[in-house]
Structures are given as structure tokens and as C-alpha cells.
């Protein structure tokens, strides 16, 4: 406590629940959040420096370890960058396989987010459903790559494994079941008056804010800004199949959820078309790349959280002299400075999670009275607080 009215709530930074750890310090007056400080760096591993000591093929495995959730996003952007540098055109079959992997990842990442958002709101059914439908996606990954996470599919010049034609009918069947599940989830979430009351008008980011913070991905699209690297600068098979960029107006948590749900169904459309082409498309799934020339290359991939950017500079040796990585959350997390302020503490968890950077810190939330050093709320209590707020709204709206 700094003065009579102001109190700080530290959120984070250790023992992440989800992805990378971050530290948020909420400034609160009573129940209202009046400011926020964000600290990063708890998970800084010096990947850019490490990459300078790895040859280009090792670099793919290195950047795959940046994120455990969207583990193909960084390799995808990295191979795009190296291929841009060397002027490599990959085979058609590899393009389709890359897009299938990229979209499967988007679906599982969005379902993971949706489940946790449901849990924070006290809708554990949504949590269970989302994660139930996420499971078949991981099974598909296991079938394709042998791994449920860290699929190691990307390779300079193509992909490391083919999708066997014999597996395609089974994959299509799994996606069909998932699509029905998504229809049900979409209805359950978009038509629920309590969820609407809880999420509409909360954590609003205007188009102006998005531009100012240079935010990307579903966050930008939920504020009505139609940007998507897959459409704007087509790579892999994204320019060869029919799909639409999903946007929504409002910029609140509801809009962010809707964009993600609609995007998953677009992803299924993309995967279905790619699989159909893979049935007939013959040819290699990778070409051999012997040497990377000197020069610079930029690769981008629309990861589940937004545009992932890699810059690679080579001096004709087998290692990059500079490798810059910019993950989408780098831009998106900063928007919390706008989105959290002016709302309830019980909404803060949801708003911070709506960015989908990490729920990481939320498990470690504690409200501590500075003078007495007594813990007022633990992380568990804050999730409870958030869930109780939903209960109150439900009572008010539905009388039960």
C-alpha cells in the first residue's frame, strides 16, 4: 500500500499455469483497476543469441522450443525466412502439408484458450468440452508426426514427413466430429446471456488502440481490423484454398472469443481443402537444400495469436549471423495497459487471459496487505472471485 486508497495487486511471475511467465502489477482503488505495470523477462532464454551458434537445420528445432502451445509457429516463420533469403520455392505437396499443420495447431490452441476462459468464468462445462474436442486434434498430430506436441514437421525446402493418403479419411472423420462440436460450442457461448453480460463491453480495445500498440492476430481482428498474414501475404497453401478472414466489432472479450471460435471453423475448411488436394497431388514433399547464400530474409506466419515474424541474416556460413524473433504476444501483451484499466479486479483475470498470451501468472495471484503482510486473496481466491461474479450475474439475469 502506498497511500490510503491505493493498493497494488501483484500477478505472477513464477510457476506458470500455461505458457511464459509474466508479471503484472495492478493498481487498484477499491475494486477498480486504475493502472497496470507489466514486467517481462522471467523466461528469457537468449534464443536469438543461441541461434547464432546453431546451423540452419538445428535452428528449426531450437525455435520450436520457444513456445509449447504453438510449437509450429516459430519453425514455420523461420523456414519462411530462410526460404525468402535463399529464394527457395517448395513443392506443392509440402505447401498443403504445412498449411494443414498450421491450421490444426490454430484449432488446438484456440480450444485451449476457450477452455481456460470458460474455467475462469466459472463455466467448467465449457472447459471440459473444449478440451475434449482438443483431444482428437492431438491424436491427428500423433498420427501425422508421431508427437502430440512439438511435431518437428518444418524443414527448409519442405516438410519432414508426408501425410499418408491412407490416413486422410480417418483425419477427415475426426474433423467432421470436431466441426459438430464447434457448432455446439458456438451456440452455447454466443447465445448465453450470462456469458454475454460477463464479457460484452469488458476489456475493450478500440481500433485506434490496436493500431497504436501495433497489436496483431485475433486481438486486432476482434476490434474490426482485418489483418491476417495468411491472406495479406499468402504463403504455403493459403493462397490456393478458399477461406475468409474472420473479424468482429467491439474489441471486448466477447468479440475475441467469437473471432477465435469462427476462426476454428475456417481452419477446418482450409484443412479439408488441403487434404482433398493431398489425395491427388503427387510429387515430393521436400527438396534438398545444400547451401544458404549470404543475404537477408524475412518470414512471417499467422500463428494462433497473430503474426509471428522472423528475420535471418546469413554470411554464407551454415549459421545465421543474426536471427531476430518477434512473437505476436510481444505486441499483444502491452495492450493490457489499455484493456484492464477501468474494470473490476474480478474481470482483470479474464481480460489478461483474453489476450491469450498466458494465463500463466494467474495461478500465482496474491493480494497482500503491505502493512500487515497478510495475504488477502490467493490466486485460487481470485479465480473464485471471478466465478462468483458470473454466479451473481446469472442470478440477476436468470433468477437461478
Amino acid at each position, binding site marked *: 500500500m502506498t497511500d490510503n486508497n491505493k493498493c497494488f495487486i501483484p500477478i505472477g511471475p513464477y510457476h506458470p499455469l500455461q505458457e511464459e511467465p509474466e508479471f503484472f502489477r495492478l493498481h487498484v482503488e477499491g475494486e477498480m483497476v486504475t493502472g497496470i505495470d507489466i514486467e517481462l523477462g522471467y523466461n528469457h532464454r537468449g534464443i536469438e*543469441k543461441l541461434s547464432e551458434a546453431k546451423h540452419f537445420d538445428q535452428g528449426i528445432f531450437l525455435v520450436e522450443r520457444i513456445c509449447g502451445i504453438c510449437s509450429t509457429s516459430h519453425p514455420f516463420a523461420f523456414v519462411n525466412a530462410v526460404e525468402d533469403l535463399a529464394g527457395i520455392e517448395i513443392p506443392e505437396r509440402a505447401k498443403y502439408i504445412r498449411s494443414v499443420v498450421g491450421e490444426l495447431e490454430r484449432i488446438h490452441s484456440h480450444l485451449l484458450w476457450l477452455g481456460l476462459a470458460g474455467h475462469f468464468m466459472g463455466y467448467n462445462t465449457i472447459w471440459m468440452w473444449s478440451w475434449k474436442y482438443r483431444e482428437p486434434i492431438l491424436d491427428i498430430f500423433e498420427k501425422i508426426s508421431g508427437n502430440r506436441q512439438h511435431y518437428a514437421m518444418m524443414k527448409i525446402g519442405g516438410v519432414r514427413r508426408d501425410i499418408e493418403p491412407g490416413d486422410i479419411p480417418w483425419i477427415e472423420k475426426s474433423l467432421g466430429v470436431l466441426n459438430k462440436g464447434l457448432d455446439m460450442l458456438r451456440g452455447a457461448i454466443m447465445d448465453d446471456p450470462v456469458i454475454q453480460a460477463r464479457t460484452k463491453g469488458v476489456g475493450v480495445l478500440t481500433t485506434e488502440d490496436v493500431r*497504436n*500498440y501495433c497489436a496483431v492476430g485475433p486481438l486486432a481482428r476482434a476490434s474490426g481490423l482485418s489483418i491476417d498474414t495468411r491472406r*495479406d501475404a499468402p504463403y504455403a497453401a493459403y493462397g490456393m484454398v478458399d477461406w475468409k478472414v474472420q473479424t468482429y466489432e467491439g474489441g471486448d472479450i466477447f468479440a475475441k472469443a467469437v473471432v477465435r471460435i469462427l476462426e476454428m471453423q475456417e481452419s477446418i475448411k482450409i484443412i479439408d481443402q488441403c487434404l482433398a488436394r493431398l489425395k491427388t497431388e503427387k510429387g515430393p514433399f521436400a527438396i534438398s537444400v545444400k547451401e544458404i547464400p549470404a543475404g537477408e530474409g524475412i518470414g512471417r506466419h499467422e500463428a494462433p495469436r497473430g503474426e509471428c515474424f522472423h528475420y535471418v541474416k546469413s554470411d554464407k556460413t551454415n549459421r545465421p549471423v543474426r536471427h531476430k524473433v518477434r512473437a505476436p504476444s510481444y505486441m499483444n501483451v502491452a495492450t493490457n495497459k489499455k484493456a484492464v484499466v477501468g474494470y473490476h479486479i474480478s474481470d482483470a483475470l479474464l481480460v489478461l487471459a483474453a489476450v491469450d498470451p498466458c494465463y500463466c501468472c494467474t495461478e500465482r495471484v496474491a493480494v497482500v496487505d503491505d502493512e500487515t503482510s497478510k495475504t488477502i486473496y490467493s490466486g485460487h481466491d481470485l479465480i473464485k472471485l471471478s466465478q462468483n461474479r458470473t454466479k451473481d450475474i446469472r442470478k440477476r439475469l436468470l433468477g437461478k
Partner: protein
Amino acid sequence: MNTAKASEKIKEKFANAITGWEEKNPKRVYFQIPPASLRELTRYAVNELGLRFIIASGTDTRRTIEILYHFADDNSGAVITARIVLPDKKNLKIDSIGDIFVGAMWIEREIHELLGVAFTGNDDLRHLLLNDDWPKNNFPLRHDNDR
């Protein structure tokens, strides 16, 4: 507006300042401008042309430090990159663009701690990624730190 146009417009407007122009392919344009033109270029690119700032990346070229400012033209899918070579490695300074849009604040802090470049006008150059007790004048991405 198509790609060529955004980069062509920059080429035309900053004809006197641009010292190197490379069109690697239709979607990738690199050009070099002096540090003094950075703010004007950024304002023009973001406010007038509607380009989106992706990120900046600093590189130690051994002789000095160069900073690349990457802008995306989402209408055409091009990435337009401005290269700024800082003239004096002993006195690394460049104007901040954090007041033009907030999105540049963090990367300036990052380049400051990893490469030792001072951003004039950015008051918040605290460590972003490194520990607070990281040794002074040790910049991890500089090659002159290598032992």
C-alpha cells in the same frame, strides 16, 4: 494501394535521404536512410501510408550497430525495411519513435539492453528482458562481448 506504391512513395518522398535501395523481390524492400530521417519516415509510413510497424531489429556488424525498422503493408503483403546504420559505435544514439506509436516502446528497451543503443526521447529504458543486476556495459548481442 498496392505494394509497389507504398515503397515507391517512400522512395519518391525521401529521394534525397535514401542511400541504398534493394528490392530483393516484389514483397521485400530494403533501403538505407540516415538516423536523422527516422522520425519523419516513421510518421510518413505509419500515419500517411497506413503501414503497420512490425518490429525493429538491431545487428552488430562489428564496425558499428545497424537497426532495421520493419513495416508491413497489409494491403499488398509487402515488408518494407528501413536500415539505419549508426555512425559511431562509441556513441550509439538514435531518436525514439515511441511517442509516434506505443508499440515501439518495448523494442527500444530491448535493443537498449541487448545492444547498448540509447534512444533519445524514450524515458523508460529500464531492462525489459535481462535481470536488473545484469552487469553494466555488457550487451549480450554485441560481438565485442565475446570472450
